[in-house]
């Protein structure tokens, strides 16, 4: 359990840090890039990063508690609730962590236009951003694979790391409840 707790804490720190950096990057792009659709996507990205931070901070309150002075039954119920929450969080990653940013990134990439039309010059941005159609298709395909990998990794983590612990907790809970029916 402690290993899982540590892994969850590290994941949250990593994701929240990445979200803060992402927010700063998209804030810069929002003010720097002149293309309206891309600016709209940058604003959406900032909102999405804020949502990720809030969601992970909320999940922090649902971590396994260290209230070891609860009754054994209470402690098991506590652990079960926390593990169920984590399993649901990982299983639903497509809906809150992968598909929304994929759509936003698609809007961002497709919204990139010709810098000359906007009298925009930024050599760094021009060398990084996929401005041609071929680069746009390549970037969107790459993003699709990237987010598919994220979904797969999270689903694997849910079934490989969280569900066995949940099953073990449920077995012990069933053992506690056994004989209760015969008790009437």
């Amino acid at each position, binding site marked *: *359990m*402690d*290993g899982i707790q540590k892994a969850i804490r590290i994941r949250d720190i990593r994701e929240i840090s990445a979200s803060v950096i992402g927010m700063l990057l998209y804030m810069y792009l929002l003010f720097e890039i002149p293309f309206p659709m891309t600016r709209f996507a940058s604003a959406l990205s900032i909102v999405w990063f804020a949502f990720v931070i809030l969601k992970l901070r909320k999940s922090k309150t649902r971590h396994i508690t*260290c*209230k*070891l*002075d*609860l*009754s*054994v*039954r*209470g*402690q*098991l119920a506590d652990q079960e609730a926390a593990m169920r929450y984590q399993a649901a969080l990982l299983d639903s990653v497509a809906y809150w962590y992968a598909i929304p940013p994929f759509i936003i990134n698609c809007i961002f990439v497709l919204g990139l236009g010709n810098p000359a039309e906007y009298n925009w010059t930024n050599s760094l941005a021009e060398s990084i951003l996929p401005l041609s159609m071929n680069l746009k298709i390549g970037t969107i395909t790459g993003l699709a694979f990237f987010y598919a990998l994220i979904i797969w990794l999270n689903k694997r983590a849910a079934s490989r790391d969280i569900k*066995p*612990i949940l099953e*073990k*907790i449920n077995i*012990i809970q069933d*053992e*506690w409840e*056994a*004989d*209760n029916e*015969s*008790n009437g």
Partner: protein
Amino acid sequence: MLQKLEINFEQVLEENKHKIFRICSIYAVNPLEPQDLFQEVVFQIWKSFDGFKGQSTINTWVYKITINVCLRSKMKLDKTNQKTDRFESIHFTPVDEEIDTFEHENFKYLKACISTLNETDTSLIVLYLDDLSYKDISSITGLSENHIAVKMKRIRKKLLDCIASKMK
């Protein structure tokens, strides 16, 4: 205030170390040793000591933490089978009491039979063997006294059958 807390913690540890070690000995399964579990329990009692509100007796509170830590450690071990780090500063060596060979044999059988029980039954029999009332066991486990009575009847029978077969 801190000093008072430390003295109290030491008193609690002094009064309960034998029973904590006894419970740890029953839960410890190779490669986890009783000493490792004992250290973890002591550490968790120290960590939670501030949170003791006096809603139950200190003994019941210590039992709750001990059983919860033992169960959690077992879950962790089942999953990762990982090694533990041992701190020499938290070390307890129980003094061997004078036990005759017959009693020693009986204890060996009892321990062997307890190891065949599941986690729940182990927790209950450990508390029962420590002479706790059903009321205290109920407070520690969260089960009703009636439920515990039914379970204990079944566990006692299981243990008696097991020990009898070993003594033949």
